[in-house]
């Protein structure tokens, strides 16, 4: 069945189940229904790659931010002219869409320097596409100088948005945007709290769909749907007592069906350290401060959990260990997109240089996973080895 067959027919999801179904469908649409409505109403849309972009600035500029994905595009034929095959498949699928001008619902794009492949999106975009592209330099360290450097970068980004969207980002608008995004983060944290239960009311795959869908629609609408979802799940019974409580760690995973394969083996993903997951909402932005740009810097570089782009490793390992304890995790799955240097070394470090209190399985994948059989087998073996160790 085509998952998008009835997408958009459910005009106003009223139950937790309807919201989840709506979000799952949204994950596999080129653009969400809510985004297209915004666009049709004359609203501006700014695309972005990677979670180091402070969406609050886009919101304060009166536009909607949308994280660019490529779930509708299993090909890379046009993109391969631009990117060699040693580039990770997410970037090649996404750039393929971009160069075919299929991201026609955005007015411009923000590209952080978060990895060697993604940073070149800006170089390509600014040469070959008509819409604006802004390169956001993300520091590799959480030093005082690095935070100062990043604040200057945010000033440059603010200027770009104002110039291209014909608007002014006042402190008042920025504070309002921060409040809106903090509300999103609070609701997502509430959702994740429910997963600490012995029998969580929502699967890992569905939770991933909830987070992913939120990166592609106006936050007001998203928050309203999240309110319905959380209220519904608070009253809902747990799904089942899982064979094992699992955690997923790794590079940008935006495909709930990937976790369906994992969970089909009887385990349940109860938490994650993902950039389509807990890392993006673990910390709020300070609202009550006179320097709001600095507050954004603090949230992005100092307060929230980082991916390997912003070293060092120990706090990341501590974050994973903390989640293992908080969510009573039995096993960790570290997934990594092939060719990703950042997560390639991270999976090595998590496996070889620290002793986590739960066993770890490392899996390489492509953006479009063909090897679901292999994944099933490896997860099955992982679960069996955990059960064997427990006996």
């Amino acid at each position: 069945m085509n998952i998008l067959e009835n997408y958009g027919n459910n005009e106003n999801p009223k139950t937790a189940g309807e919201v989840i179904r709506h979000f799952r469908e949204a994950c596999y649409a080129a653009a969400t229904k809510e985004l297209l409505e915004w666009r049709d109403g004359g609203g501006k849309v700014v695309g972005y790659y990677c979670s180091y972009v402070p969406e609050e600035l886009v919101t304060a500029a009166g536009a909607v931010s949308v994280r660019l994905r490529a779930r509708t595009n299993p090909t890379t034929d046009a993109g391969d002219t631009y990117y060699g095959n040693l580039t990770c498949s997410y970037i090649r699928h996404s750039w393929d869409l971009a160069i075919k001008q299929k991201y026609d619902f955005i007015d411009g794009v923000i590209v952080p320097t978060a990895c060697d492949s993604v940073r070149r999106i800006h170089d390509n975009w600014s040469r070959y596409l008509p819409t604006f592209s802004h390169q956001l330099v993300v520091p590799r360290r959480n030093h005082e100088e690095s935070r100062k450097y990043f604040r200057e970068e945010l000033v440059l980004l603010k200027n770009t948005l104002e110039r291209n969207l014909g608007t002014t980002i006042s402190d008042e608008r920025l504070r309002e945007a921060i409040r809106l995004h903090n509300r999103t983060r609070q609701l997502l944290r509430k959702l994740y709290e429910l997963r600490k239960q012995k029998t969580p009311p929502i699967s890992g795959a569905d939770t991933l769909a909830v987070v992913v869908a939120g990166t592609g629609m106006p936050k007001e609408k998203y928050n309203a749907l999240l309110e319905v979802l959380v209220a519904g799940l608070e009253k809902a019974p747990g799904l089942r007592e899982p064979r094992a409580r699992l955690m997923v760690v790794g590079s940008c995973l935006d495909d709930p069906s990937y976790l369906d394969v994992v969970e089909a083996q009887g385990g349940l993903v109860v938490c994650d350290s993902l950039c389509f997951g807990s890392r993006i909402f673990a910390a709020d932005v300070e609202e009550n401060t006179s320097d709001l740009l600095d507050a954004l810097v603090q949230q992005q570089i100092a307060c929230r959990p980082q991916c390997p782009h912003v070293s060092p490793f120990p706090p990341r390992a501590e974050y994973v260990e903390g989640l293992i304890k908080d969510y009573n995790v039995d096993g960790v799955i570290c997934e990594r997109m092939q060719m990703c240097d950042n997560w390639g070394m991270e999976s090595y470090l998590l496996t070889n240089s620290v002793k986590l209190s739960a066993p770890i399985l490392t899996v390489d994948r492509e953006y479009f996973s063909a090897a679901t059989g292999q994944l099933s087998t490896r997860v099955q073996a992982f679960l069996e080895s955990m059960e064997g160790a427990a006996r």
Partner: protein
Amino acid sequence: MRTVSSAERAKSIEVLTQEIETQEAFVEFVSGVEDPAVQLQVPNLKSMLALTKKVRQVVKDDEPFVYSWFVLGPEIYHAMDLFWDSGPRAEFGTFLALSVPEYLEQVLKDCDRVAVSSDICTLHRLALSAIEMKRSPKPWAAVACIHPCDGVSQAQSAVERAWPDVPMFWMDSPYYPDERGVKFFAGQMRRMAKFLEEHTGKRLDLDKLRDVCNATNEQYALWGEFDALKRNRPCPVGSWAGYGIWNMMQNNPLTFGQPITTQYIKSLITDAEEKVAAGKGHLENEKVRVLFMDIAPVWFAEFAEMLEQECNGVVVVEGQGGSYAYTPIDTSTEESMFMGIARRNCMETPMIRTSRGPVDIIINDMIRNVLDYKIDVVIAPGHMGHKDMQASLKIIRDACETVGAKLLNFQYDLFDNRYMPMEEIRRIVTQFIDAMSEEKLI
């Protein structure tokens, strides 16, 4: 508190001795080759051997030293009288040993034991393997290299975990090659100097810093002179003839800023000038001039020989060349020296210059090199670890078209020929050049 067990020390001495013996045999062999072009390279080869011996001595005597990279302010280590060992020493510096197939095989086998994904740059896997095998001995302090790529930056975390009792300094790196970036990096280098003072007991001597900046300024100018001579057609020197300059000027602490290096560059210049004056090229019948947009591969000698013999070609410019415009360091004040050192290390040294920031730097360098050095064929972007270059493919191709150079794009591993065997490289390169020649495109 750093501790080195007697077993660790003994292991380091053992593997370094094995490396030295391999290098000695190779240097002895090369010293006996009568070809004057080969003889010109001998001082560099000897300096590499001397470096390995020095590393072994430092381990034996337990002298303070720092583990770092050539792009993180060797001027400062020199002015602190602080010996530095580097990740690249364990790879580039062992070229001598790596030229011996059996030794290379052993090093790669050791590398395979490090359980890091094989799609991550082999240089970094080799660096980690060198630490595991004690070829890189445990330092007193380490400076993490965070540029130019994800691979090197992430590898530093593994280095930190491998030496948990070694204090490590982490700096950050700017993106754009502007004054803001230089200032940012200069600030990081000041903090690094303080860190090293604290952990090694050495002191930064500003007079010594000034002296080494002046000496290296002169050497960079000479390097530029040498490279300018390669603009002549036919090229007066063979492929990678300037590799030793890079090694002696940037990668070897024993020759860094030393008169031996100045003499070495001058000898290469004299040789090239004489050939130019006589209208002689390295090849009697030079047909193809190549820009190799990567650092020197371990298989560069085989590649150069193949290019010469089968295509009448020569690599005129390569990624470690001094064809970049190195800015002389202004030695008038402490501030100006730190700014100059930051500019040189972050914006001008090989790989860091091109791979750290926006693609415009790669493209501008490439265009300038193609035009100035009359390049026919550009080989890029090849190395399996250079993900930013892989992501610049179309931009590079378009730039080549603009200036009429032919782009040969294929993938290889600079350090491991199992990835792309030399026979396959030979087939790809010769077929391409033959086809271009037949079509009279080059």
